[in-house]
């Protein structure tokens, strides 16, 4: 067993353990942290597959940005998850049946000849001067330009939808309007009232 295979086994075992942890732990913060661990281990497995760019992107984007944001949300919302777990034992038999069927199908499928080692041989490792990032960029901005642009439009729709669904103009909200604050003159703030004197004390 060479060193690469050894590393693969270690990290994939940790990955599976972390993935099981995500769905079994009761604490949502712990679940999120398990997910971070799972992402990190997948990143290392991708690194072993010589997909350096994707591997580092996975760590930067998912671990660095998405999961941190997710942790913030979980911590700030303080969701009580116990009602979500109700009926677990009631749905267990049906769920187990469906999962069992899917597992049997997948085992049957993965043993099929369409995914055999002859059809998908181990790829030849690239030389040290092979530039992963450049190749990805070339593919994305030439062959897959159309799909890339459509994905951008989908993000635009997501932004429009998120803003349209959450922005409310409530009359009781107090806004600061810096432009008006700067333009204020002393007449707006200070009123000089000339009053007749009451004639003083008699």
């Amino acid at each position, binding site marked *: 067993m060479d060193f690469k295979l050894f590393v693969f086994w270690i990290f994939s075992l940790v990955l599976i353990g972390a993935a099981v942890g995500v769905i079994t732990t009761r604490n949502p913060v712990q679940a999120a942290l398990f997910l971070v661990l799972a992402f990190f281990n997948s990143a290392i497995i991708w690194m072993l597959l010589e997909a350096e760019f994707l591997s580092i992107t996975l760590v930067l984007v998912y671990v660095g940005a998405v999961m941190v944001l997710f942790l913030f949300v979980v911590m700030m919302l303080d969701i009580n998850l116990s009602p979500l777990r109700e009926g677990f034992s009631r749905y267990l038999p049906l769920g187990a049946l469906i999962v069992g069927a899917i597992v049997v199908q997948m085992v049957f499928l993965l043993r099929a000849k369409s995914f055999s080692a002859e059809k998908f041989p181990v790829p030849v490792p690239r030389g040290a001067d092979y530039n992963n990032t450049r190749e990805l960029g070339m593919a994305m901005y030439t062959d897959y330009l159309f*799909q890339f642009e459509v994905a951008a439009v989908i993000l635009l729709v997501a932004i429009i*939808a998120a803003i349209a669904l959450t922005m409310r103009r409530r009359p009781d909200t107090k806004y600061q309007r810096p432009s008006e604050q700067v333009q204020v003159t002393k007449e707006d703030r200070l009123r000089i009232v000339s009053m007749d004197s009451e004639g003083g004390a008699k």
Partner: protein
Amino acid sequence: MDNLGLATPEIFLLCAICVILIGDLYVREDQRPLAYLLAQVSLIGTLLLTWSIAPEIGSATAFGGSFVMDQMSVVCKTWILAVSIGVFLYSRDYINSRNITNGEYYTLALCGVLGMMIMVSSSTMLTLYLGLELLSLSLYALVALNRKDVRSSEAAMKYFVLGALASGALLYGISMIYGATGSLHFDAISNALATDADSTAAVFGLAFLVVGIGFKFGAAPFHMWVPDVYEGAPTSVTLYISSAPKIAAFALAMRFLVDGLENAHSNWQGMLIILSVMSIVLGNVIAIAQVSIKRMLAYSTISHVGFILLGILSGSEQGYSASMFYAITYAFTSMGAFGIILAMDRVGADVQLLTDLRGLFRRNPVYAAVMMLLLVSMAGVPPTVGFYAKLAVLSAVVQADLVWLAVVAVIFSVVGAFYYLRVIKYMFFDEPAETQPVLAAFDVKVGLSINGAAILLFGVFPGLIMAACVAAFSG
């Protein structure tokens, strides 16, 4: 970057969407109709551009083969755009009188149209999936756009969760087919399957594809979202969902099943038979029990989807063109029916129940006549277009030696005629609950009259659409 010009309509529509989106921010409250006008102008412009770049015969591809402009995509795009123009016309007054922001509504609806056009023109699984997601995301947001209505939010939530699940199934199927054939391009998939049509992985992936397609179509047993979404969504959005996306769903099924997997026809024919029989039976029987008009039309949609699938599963060019004819004519029939409901609708007096249509003839004879034509067409009575559509689909099914299937479809169409005729009885022979005449804007009136006349015109001269549908699949 070859043939960039083929995508001119899509590029134009995207630019128009951005203009409306930004422009709407600078428009004063009393100039809001501007968004509507711009949306209509951009749809008409896109339609003209589509015609101007359409290839005379055959097909042309762009973007490294991921975008195709063939006869089928020209016909589908034409009708998607034409139906969308009608949809915007009918929904304008409803949007203005409700708590729905104008700019966002038209922007999201146009993004949906863009998604449909991309779906229709895609020649790889990736493009098709992205177009579908663009359409679905716009629809989820549109359903929830009336935030003050709890039912809208509930419908949007159900639609979103079930839709995400269906997208997952579709993607899983795509990944399996990619694994089995090694390509995302439909023609390469078709070539790979020509030698090995019964590859286990491809058939496994195909099953998931059919689940995804069935869901997006709203075919039984994946129809659970349809009645809830139709009822909960603002009526203008129900109008939108029930019309043009049916044409896009037809294109989705055609691209996956015929362009990509036609060699596996014997495998998917059985799956589609189950879907279409269940849709026709469930749709027609459950619609009888409905008291809400939107739910009734939802179940009626399910049964019509069954008919569209019948044409596809027959697996012949005749069946495909009959199915396309059915999808197109159903889109504008359904558009007209919801258009009448929207025209009757007023703030504080939503049209919800079937009995709300009572005495429509006394309140507005023209609308009652148009609605009667639409319902008669849905029931499939000659000389309306619905009759010819059903006839074409059924004759394709009979040609494919599936006579029992045609018999089942006919029997349940007759069952379905009951609930359409019941509405006609309400409109013509019952006393109205309120005597106020139904008034609508002049252009809406003209649009609805044209819509009703089209049902008759295309019923008497089906060749006007059928010729294009046949041309789309010949050769």
